[in-house]
């Protein structure tokens, strides 16, 4: 297909989203139909593009010299674009029901839809500059979503989100400058864009710059000292927390780090250096730290947010192994975690929407009143723990296989961190499940008489996600094969 369609896929949601508040809708349902159609059409477009991949590059505008905004579709982009274009229509459907209780719907949906386009922009970017531009844009368009409720808490959270993100981007910017100056090509190339001679000359400088940019993008991926924005950003409406702060935004950070590591600096250069060990240490610490904080947390959404922090570092752990297999592990966890976490967040959202309860200790006995939601929540909890037969097991398996294969002694400790984190995951997820299913003996069900399952608009996405979790868990081979091809550059 013509590469222009890549740009179109980015453009449609942006323009369509901006139009939304401008159109004078007579009925709410008209707006919903419009939005859902928009998103579905765009997703179909993306999938058509994925299946008939355009080979050439579409250049939109030249800045200076070789700096251009350009789009292309390669293996890594395929994975990320495919993932978000699958999730977005479902999440939009879910948010229709969720947002009935919130204000300023039009603005909300405008930014929500625009974010779709911007995220696609990140995944379809052909060069670092384009990715960086969309990365910054992503911060800006998601900011109003975090601010949405306009409470004092929300404003503080959004400020923090903004400072962290822009600060991170500023450090990533340093990396970009280096790549533009020393890189032999502005485009992404698997294996790196800098010649070995250049790299050997200023080895430590390059490593330092790599570490800077890693931390810079790592802000969005919530690595350890830079993660406190994520739990706070949980004040946003749940569709935002679920889709953006568990998938789109945070995975953009991870995606950017993959680009940086595999497609810009090149793993051959980075492997075995102090930078690798340093980052591996940070990532391992984050894995455990996130889980421990999740165990401590009693607010449902914040607990899930801490869990996201930990799981994002699983992905980064795969990346810092700096082997193709590590990339396979990272990508598979990126996909599978997206399903698991969006699923559990949507369950949390359903609970909040139906009952206005936010804290875990308020969930006693809910499973009897919301059987479907809690069945799905249990599935996602088990998957997050990595129970065999569900998708979480597969991605962890891929990660650990890569760690063993890398023959890196420090990676063995990483396996330990993963397992410890799995145990902590079991603690923080299953305590919720057990509380809901097994309240204390003389629990009075009359106190939660008003609690019931939500309607189909919420249940449909949930069911789809739960089914996907199981399906991926049982037959993950096509996915793993695809990812292996991507990591080898043959896709």
């Amino acid at each position, binding site marked *: 297909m013509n590469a222009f369609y890549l740009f179109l896929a980015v453009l449609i949601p942006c323009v369509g989203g901006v139009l939304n508040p401008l159109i004078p809708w007579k009925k709410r349902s008209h707006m919903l139909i419009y939005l859902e159609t928009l998103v579905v059409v765009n997703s179909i477009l993306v999938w058509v593009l994925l299946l008939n991949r355009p080979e050439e590059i579409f250049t939109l505008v030249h800045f200076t010299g070789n700096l251009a905004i350009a789009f292309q579709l390669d293996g890594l982009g395929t994975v990320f674009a495919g993932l978000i274009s699958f999730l977005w229509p479902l999440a939009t459907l879910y948010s229709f029901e969720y947002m009935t209780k919130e204000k300023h719907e039009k603005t909300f949906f405008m930014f929500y839809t625009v974010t779709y386009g911007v995220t696609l922009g990140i995944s379809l970017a052909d060069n670092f500059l384009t990715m960086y531009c969309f990365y910054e844009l992503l911060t800006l368009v998601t900011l109003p979503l975090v601010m949405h409720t306009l409470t004092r808490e929300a404003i503080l959270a959004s400020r923090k989100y903004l400072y962290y993100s822009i600060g991170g981007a500023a450090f990533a910017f340093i990396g970009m400058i280096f790549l533009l*100056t020393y890189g032999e090509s502005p485009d992404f190339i698997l294996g790196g864009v800098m010649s070995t001679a250049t790299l050997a000359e200023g080895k430590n*400088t390059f490593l330092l710059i790599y570490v800077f940019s890693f931390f810079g993008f790592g802000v969005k991926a919530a690595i350890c000292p830079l993660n406190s924005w994520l739990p706070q950003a949980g004040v946003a409406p749940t569709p935002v927390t679920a889709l953006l702060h568990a998938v789109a935004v945070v995975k953009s950070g991870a995606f950017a780090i993959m680009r940086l590591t595999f497609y810009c600096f090149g793993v051959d250069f980075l492997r075995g250096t102090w930078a690798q060990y340093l980052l591996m240490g940070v990532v391992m610490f984050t894995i455990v730290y996130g889980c421990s904080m999740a165990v401590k947390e009693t607010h449902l959404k914040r607990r899930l947010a801490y869990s996201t922090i930990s799981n994002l570092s699983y992905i980064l752990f795969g990346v810092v192994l700096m082997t193709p297999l590590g990339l396979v592990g990272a990508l598979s966890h990126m996909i599978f975690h997206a399903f698991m976490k969006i699923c559990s967040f949507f369950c949390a959202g359903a609970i909040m929407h139906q009952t206005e309860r936010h804290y875990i200790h308020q969930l006693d006995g809910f499973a009897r009143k919301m059987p479907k939601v809690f069945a799905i929540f249990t599935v996602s909890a088990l998957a997050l723990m990595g129970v065999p037969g569900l998708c979480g097991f597969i991605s962890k398996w891929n990660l650990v296989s890569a760690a063993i294969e890398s023959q890196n002694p420090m990676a063995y400790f990483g396996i330990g961190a993963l397992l410890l984190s799995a145990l902590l995951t079991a603690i923080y997820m299953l305590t919720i499940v057990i509380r809901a299913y097994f309240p204390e003996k003389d629990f009075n069900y009359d106190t939660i008489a008003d609690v019931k399952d939500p309607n189909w608009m919420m249940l449909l996405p949930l069911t789809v996600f739960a089914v996907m979790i199981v399906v991926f868990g049982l037959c993950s081979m096509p996915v793993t094969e695809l990812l292996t091809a991507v990591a080898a550059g043959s896709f």
Partner: protein
Amino acid sequence: MELIRNFPCLSIFMAMLSAIISSALKGNGARRLNTFVVTAVGVMSACVLYLTCTTGESYVYKMGHFPAPIGNEIRFGSLEAGMALFFCVIMLFSLNGGRKKIQIEIDPGKENLYYIMVDLLLSSLLALVYTNDLFTAYVFVEINTIAACGLIMIMESGRAIEAATRYMIMSLLGSGLFLIGLCMLYDMTGHLLMSYIQISVREIAESGTYMIPLLVTIALIVVGLAIKSALFPFHAWLPDAYGYSTVSSAAMLSSLVSKGYIFLLIKIIYRVIGFDIFVNSKIINVLFVFGLAGMIMGSMSAIRENDIRRMISYSSVAQIGYIYMGFGLGTTVGMVASVFHILSHAATKSLLFVSGVGLTDVSGEKTQFIELTGAAYRNVAAGLAFTVGSLSMVGIPLFSGFISKLLFSQAAVQSNIKMLPTLIALAVSTVLNAIYFMKTVIRIYTPIESKYPSVSIKKNRLYAFTLLCFVMLNVALGMCSQPITDWITQGLSVFA
């Protein structure tokens, strides 16, 4: 084509003449005359720019009867012409954007006085841009100072007068240092025309005698101009001067006056001292360090500030730091980045001042942040424009600030020792910028039930149009930076 060569000289005199005529006119007439002159000068500068760009040379224009090296000269290449054009554009926009405020804040009888000052400012700026004579430059520096003082004082409030006095003292200190440096230079070389001074300076540098006096001279001139352009730590006069004057004045002071001095400094570096000699002196390291410190400290002060006008003013300190940091890198690329940042900052800062006043207007004329809550809903145009300006300052792609940041860092990467400090300072400064600008943006977009009335765009067409122009200028600088950087590079190459 021959005619166009007369334009630089003509435009300087036109501006001065209009100042004289204005004194006989009423406020409105003076305003119209001023608008006409600024536009005319802009058109003429555009013609000059066209000429110099097509030929790619710089021209010397003899003033008066005596030929060089005794007489006075004007010299213009594409960089000068472009600067003049740009200054005119910004001045026009700033005056248009602040027109309402001028009418309100200034005593009607003194309105013509204001425009006299503006005319004088324009002529002195043009002279600073075009002249090839060091003493002429000094004279116009003083005229510039006086005009700027007038612009600050015109409000006649106690604070404005205090600020003007402070500005005056600091500025005169700067001019004094500049004058001493100039005298010493004359002592050593016997010339006042820039090109001739350079020949002598070169001889001195090669012979190796007089090195310390030369260094002292360079230092005096640089410090003098640095004080006038508010380089950290000489910035104490700035927040008051920008914060308590009328908005057009603030916009012009920050984007034109200080930039005029910086442009003069560039000229001195290239044409008087010689770029290589300047780079070899240790002065650039001092400039570099002060530039970095300014970038950080300016922003820190801005974060602590509770008043939107003063916050924007402190941000200028930081941005001036960027420019001097670019000088300090000591490479042509760094210079190009600095010149680009002069443009980018001028466009953005005046936008911020003008849109900021729109926000304070709908908040009961109060400049404290707490009053500004939700102001963007009460004045939509100003809110959007302020957001654009803030994003540009933070360095978001598509806006001019991003390109300056890009150019600065690309320049920094070429230097071994200064690379890391520069890059880290840039990153930290970005974060700090984000903190105070985006904090403001979030605040003005936080809706509350406000006691202040809102203003529609329809009632304020000119204001909204001005803001639109500013935004377009900003985006143009951000999107099509390639021709601009080419022009700057070419201009610098024929500058010496």
